[in-house]
């Protein structure tokens, strides 16, 4: 069964040699972003699924360049506005 892993620990993922992975430099337990912030959650899921289709070499690790500070800032703004997207 083809698998794609979403990881926040690049060195551990390299060590266990997953067939393909998406790496985000985000805190543990926040692989898909911040609470109620649908957009980054969706972007991460879609990027992972895209990798499932496109990756051709075992051990591929793709970086998704979204800064945690940006995710957190936008999520905080949404929360302050009382919007749960």
């Amino acid at each position, binding site marked *: *069964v*083809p698998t794609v892993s979403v990881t926040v620990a690049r060195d551990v993922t390299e060590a266990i040699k997953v067939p393909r992975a998406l790496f985000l430099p985000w805190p*543990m*337990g*926040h692989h898909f*972003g911040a*609470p109620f912030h649908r957009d980054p*959650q969706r972007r991460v899921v*879609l990027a*992972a699924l895209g990798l499932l289709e496109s990756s051709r070499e075992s051990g591929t690790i793709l970086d998704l360049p979204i800064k945690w500070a940006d995710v957190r800032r936008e999520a905080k703004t949404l929360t302050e506005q009382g919007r749960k997207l």
Partner: protein
Amino acid sequence: MTAADKRTLPAADPRESGTQLRPGLWHTINERYPGSMIRKDSFVPQARLRKPLAASRLTLVSSCGVHLKTDQPLDVCHPFGDFRFMRVPSRAKQDDLIIHHLKYAHDDADLDINVIFPIERLQELCEEGRLGRLTPNFFSFIGYNMDPEKFERTVAVGIAEAVVQEERADCALLAPA
């Protein structure tokens, strides 16, 4: 401190160099977990998708320790860990679920389960037709335990068999918490 001392010191924060590399990681893994299936010189072949995502059946597996509130909770107190895995119906909603796990901060995931177990995002992609369908059940467990050999024999093999034989998944999204 001499110039020579400075050259031998690792960077203050490995994340700054972008490598996130911890020195001696392989030594730690192979020495601490001698039963581990993966070795440094192992090659793990890559299975390929056999049909488009829009026609595929996807499952989700995570070590985040989420399960239905109605299930017997995962044991976070046992010194060796809990070697069960939980089936989470893929139609479940946020209010149906609870996390039992002590080894990562799940405060945000308690507010919105999708930050670690994106069940609602996958349901949406399925409704939009970007994914063929979801397996009836997803899978979750606690990754922390003290017996990797038993873990492989029980949790890893159990989930792998269920994913292939019961759920008949075409592909899997993994979220190692």
